[in-house]
């Protein structure tokens, strides 16, 4: 990579003397570093998300009212938290929330299309990824407007947890329309899960909401959303703190 750097033949210092040339060098640096960061985010985020959320995001019949909207924001806040801190602290750039989730979304679509659809033959309507980009936007906008990590964690973190379900409802609602199969009521999503055979993923491994005797029955969605929101405030603060530790670390100070 060292050979590619524009300022390589610069022991004489003349190469970056004029501002026009300096500008060109900076642009080249951007052209080099930004795609690299994008690739890095795609790799890290999709790996991390596959590990923590995995099947909840892979299959339309896993997106229940209790576990999916709780697990997702907790896993989803990690990169926006860490890199939100780093990019704001070092560059005053409020883009980490949106950019990391854009990267995740792009990588997810590629993987669902190639692996799940073309290779494993599942129809796309069973394996489409959920959308979370709006959450990153909210995070970035609040960070910019408040200029405070505390406030961003408080409101951004809370909205991250609160809005996963309503944000995805326009995509998901058609799949939760009831159908009947052999005397059993199912949702369209359940029907897809039953008819499109998954040999290694039997029905019982789905971690979805089971019927309970709790009186909250009617209000599962809002309750989960609020609970996920509160939990995610602490979660976001924690990951921002990790970003703070990262910013302090030697390897970053060395660049300055």
């Amino acid at each position, binding site marked *: 990579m060292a050979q590619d750097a524009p300022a390589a033949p610069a022991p004489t210092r003349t190469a970056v003397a004029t501002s026009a040339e300096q500008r060109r060098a900076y*642009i080249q*640096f*951007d052209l080099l*570093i930004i795609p690299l960061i994008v690739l890095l985010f795609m790799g890290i985020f999709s790996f991390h998300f596959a590990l923590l959320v995995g099947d909840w995001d892979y299959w339309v019949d*896993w*997106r229940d009212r209790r576990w999916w909207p709780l697990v997702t924001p907790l896993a989803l806040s990690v990169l926006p938290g860490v890199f939100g801190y780093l990019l704001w602290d*070092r*560059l*005053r*750039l*409020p*883009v980490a929330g949106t950019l990391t989730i*854009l990267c995740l979304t792009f990588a997810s679509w590629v993987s669902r299309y190639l692996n799940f659809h073309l*290779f494993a*033959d*599942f*129809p796309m*309507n069973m394996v*489409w990824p959920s*959308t979370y*980009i*709006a959450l*990153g*936007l909210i995070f*970035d*906008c*609040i960070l*910019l*407007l408040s*200029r405070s990590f505390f406030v961003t964690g408080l409101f951004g973190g809370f909205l991250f947890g609160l*809005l996963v379900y*309503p*944000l995805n*409802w*326009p*995509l998901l*609602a*058609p799949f*939760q*329309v*009831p*159908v009947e199969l052999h005397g*059993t*009521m199912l949702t*369209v999503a*359940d029907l897809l899960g039953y*008819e*499109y*055979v*998954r*040999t*290694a993923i*039997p*029905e*019982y491994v789905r971690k*979805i*909401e*089971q*019927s309970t005797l709790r009186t909250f029955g009617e209000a599962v969605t809002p309750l989960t959303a609020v609970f996920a929101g509160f939990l995610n405030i602490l979660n976001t603060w924690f990951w921002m703190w990790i970003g703070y530790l990262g910013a302090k670390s030697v390897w970053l100070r060395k660049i*300055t």
Partner: protein
Amino acid sequence: MIDAAGTPTAAKLRSRRERLRRRTLRMLALFYVLMLLPLVADAHGERAQMPQLRMSTVHWFDIEVSTTRLDVNDEIVVKGSFMPSRFWPEHVESIEGTAFLNIGVPGPSFVRLDSRVNGVPMIRSTRFMRGELYHFEMRLKARKPGRYHVHPLINVKGTGPIIGPGRWVEVGGNAADFRLEATTLLGQKIDLEHYGFANAAWWSLFWFVFGLSWFVYWLLECPIVIPRFKRRDELGVDADQMITKADRRFAFIYLTLTLSFIVGGYQYAQASYPITTPLQTGRVNVPPAERPAPTVKVEMVEARYRIPGRSFRIELKVTNSGNSAVTVGELAAGNLRFVNAAVSKVVPADEDDLVAADSLRVENGPVQPSETRNIVIYADDAMWETQRMTTMIKSPDANVAAMLFFYGADGERHIVEIGGPMIPVFG
């Protein structure tokens, strides 16, 4: 070779680039295979499982497929019977916990229209009782052309798939012709291959473009990384000055728009789909098949496996309380069938049907009505070896279980499970 190419450096460079390209492609391919292995590998774990696990978990028998050659959109019925073993290993999670009747095919090459055990739909998970008899039936519709080894299987929670005997099925036709429809409880007819996808993709694209525009806004002042890094350093505690009034206005508009789109989208979806239900789950109960009181009682006196001869010798104490003489027609263990040709004629369904048509010998003949007698059976076949059943001597728990099929002089079949310790013979 380099000389022949004329320009050696260019050729070398080209070949190096070619090699790199090929290596990258191979790595990518490997990566995808590894990612998908858990999805497809299960279809052929038949020999990989420990022999004890194969022998003393589920006994499958009378497996039938309605056809072995069909086209896309045609239906096929896979049916048969199974009996969870009474000798289910203690260290393996029981089928009496949670289980699901499934089909071992690579991905959704078939769709499952119906699956039942003893007439009860198996949409949900259930439990099966040890020593009880169950009849299953699965109706599938072919989706992708290809040649498939179709296995019935039962996923047992905590244990994994217990695979039944496979049958080769060939699917012809064109994958593009596949159709699958359903009617919702609201009376809407839907195409399950595509339903809801265009909508989900549209929303995803909308948010992607909207999010991307936010990022592009910041990219527009390019170069950004080094200049901003420097300014941020110069300004120190006053770094917030770097955020302009225009930035703030832009962020305010974006935040308002984002929240409005979320709320608007939610309300639009509520209005378009006023009736929805949560994902459905739960357990169903399957009553075991009713059977007449058994008239053949069997006790396993001794089981010895002679390794050099690939021969299983089992001594049995048989009590016949029926009205006609009975004799052993078949021993089935771990999906292998050892048939006594003198009593029962079995033709293998295909080249991978694990039937040894003439491999069972019975000593000390039929057991007469109201008689108790010790008989000895020998199951001799290379199948013990080729199907990797011989590794049973390496198990810390050297027990075996098998099904015996007795046939009466009146033609009736009696099914009895035997099991107990096994002793290997090395000489």
